[in-house]
């Protein structure tokens, strides 16, 4: 419902469900976010805090850089942070929609979490070759861990 965009807005005004594009980027709804790949997710969400060049930023506190950060050696660590959140960063894991929260949760599939990790680990000067898969991410959900033999 929420995707009409600048520049093309005149063409698309009132056409409802179309996902419009601009020269800058796509604007996602909760539904259309499911179609976003790793690169798109980075630019739509992650760069808000970690910055477009992935170098992070520092004020009274710090958003860690995703470029040249030794913690990125572990894709599992990255997956854990995205799944469970860390400090002020919220969790982006898929979970039941009935949780009482202020705002609707933004959720990424395991596939998308794997993709955004792989995107970050191969861009911004990162050259890791060991990709993480959706199955690897799925195995990290608490219920998966609990049911493991």
């Amino acid at each position: 419902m929420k995707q009409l965009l600048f520049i093309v807005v005149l063409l698309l005004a009132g056409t409802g469900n179309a996902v419009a594009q601009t020269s800058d980027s796509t604007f996602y709804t909760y539904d259309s976010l499911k179609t976003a790949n790793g690169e798109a997710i980075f630019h739509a969400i992650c760069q808000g805090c970690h910055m477009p060049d992935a170098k992070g930023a520092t004020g009274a506190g710090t958003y860690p850089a995703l470029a040249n950060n030794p913690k990125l050696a572990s894709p599992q660590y990255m997956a854990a942070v995205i799944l469970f959140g860390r400090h002020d960063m919220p969790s982006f894991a898929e979970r039941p929609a009935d949780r009482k929260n202020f705002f609707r949760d933004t959720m990424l599939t395991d596939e998308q979490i794997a993709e955004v990790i792989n995107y970050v680990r191969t861009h911004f000067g990162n050259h890791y070759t060991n990709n993480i898969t959706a199955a690897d991410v799925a195995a990290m959900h608490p219920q998966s861990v609990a049911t493991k033999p």
Partner: protein
Amino acid sequence: MQGEDSQLSMTRRDLLRLIGLSAGGAAMYAVMNRLGLAAESPYKGAPVLQGAPRGTSVLILGAGLAGMVAAYELRQAGYKVQVLEYNQRPGGRNWTLRGGDTYTELGGFTQHCQFERGLYINPGPWRIPYHHRGLLDYCKKLGIPLESFVQVNYNAYLHSAQAFGGKPQRYRAINADYRGHIAELLAKVTQQGKLEAQVTKEDQALLLDSLRRWGALNDHYAYVAGHSASNRRGYDKEPGGGLSAKPLDSQPLQLHDVLSSRLWSGLADGENYEFQTTLFQPVGGMGRIGEAFGRQLDGVIRYNAKVTAIHQDEHGVTVSYEDARRSGHIQTAHADWCICTIPLSILSQIPMNVSAPMAAAIGAVPYAASVKIGLQFKRRFWEEDEDIYGGVTMTDLPINTISYPSNDFNRKGKGVLLGAYLYGLDAYQFTAMPPEERVRRAVEYGSQIHPQYKQEFENGVAVAWHRAPFTLGCFATWTDELRAKHYDNLCQIDGRIALAGEHASYLPAWQEGAVTSAMDVIARLHQRVVAGGAA
């Protein structure tokens, strides 16, 4: 009986007079409360802190509302108070951006606010409910003039890009039609005798009468075009004076169209406790409160001080800090006690030796994303063209909200409105954009509701709270599970350190949460200091 009663009230009056004479009005009011003579309220006034040991010092971290309330009260009570603040201004999230202000967010994106003199936007809190008595009390103490904040405006819009061809509908019309149709349906059911089992005959008659009034039904309990409906939803042609003055009734929307539009989802917002009339705003911007506190605490607050470490031992608390503008040179401040109001988003990164449960609480609460955008226009077209004075338009476009200024009504010249108030996924995406793109998009979206935007827009500012260098987020998003696990641990006094702020309250994101958490913490800390003797 009558004699007994009057004797009792004589006794009460005498008692109250005595208390009033010896202990002052506040004490008398407290006793009146206990006797049930004055209205109950959870707010008990600023705590009375008596007997502070001479020379006891308190270091307060953060000059937002929580920190400054604590500093103000503790200083009055005789404590030695020092405040460290990251920004070069007081207020924290209590903040107003005005023409001439410069704001640089994380990532180095700088905005120069171009608003005309007198125009402003409140990037953070922007309204004060009448029951936020703590905050209102400080506004009174600090001499801050208030004016009405308009929340519900029957002539503002409910808008969906999917409904009515994207044409915004007046709140008044949707409200009248939704209620009218529901009243008619319920009246029908009642008249058909389908409520016999639940409602007595007498009550059915009363119910029908009430439905006619509530829903603006006609004498036959129908919601149709006519005087009663027009008197709620408005006229096609307004009544006037003289010849050709006769009004033309408007035609109610069909029930199906109202329901399928989903615009009803925006009807009840103003009925929430926090948004019920009356609401207030400080004249000249919400930031007037922080500015006034800052003047009270002149010389007590050290600005541009970035806290880097907090350490306590049995003798006191030592806080390391550096100049927020040039890192490197570490200085320290020391006090017997510390009240820390630094947002958890930042505090979770600062080394601090507190108990494991408190540390876990500090690291557990994610912060909400939120973006607000102020837009200046050449003229107040919403008033001049559309008769909208204050209040809120709700839309399912990403901008979510347009709010028209609740001040300077009917004035000629330029105006600034709140062009977007985003949260959730929309806020993440706007946060990820450069500020000028946020403004551009707010204008594009908003022009679907107000086509005048294209002609009249001049400039704007956009604040994305996750990029605010002094908060790294908008507010602490507690869930019920997080509260159960961590809230009490967060609010304990840990050795010589105690926390305060909206994050240490059940009023998340509200200034009243910061104020009442500060009042609570200084009362408990004072109790501990007095009980333990001088530090």
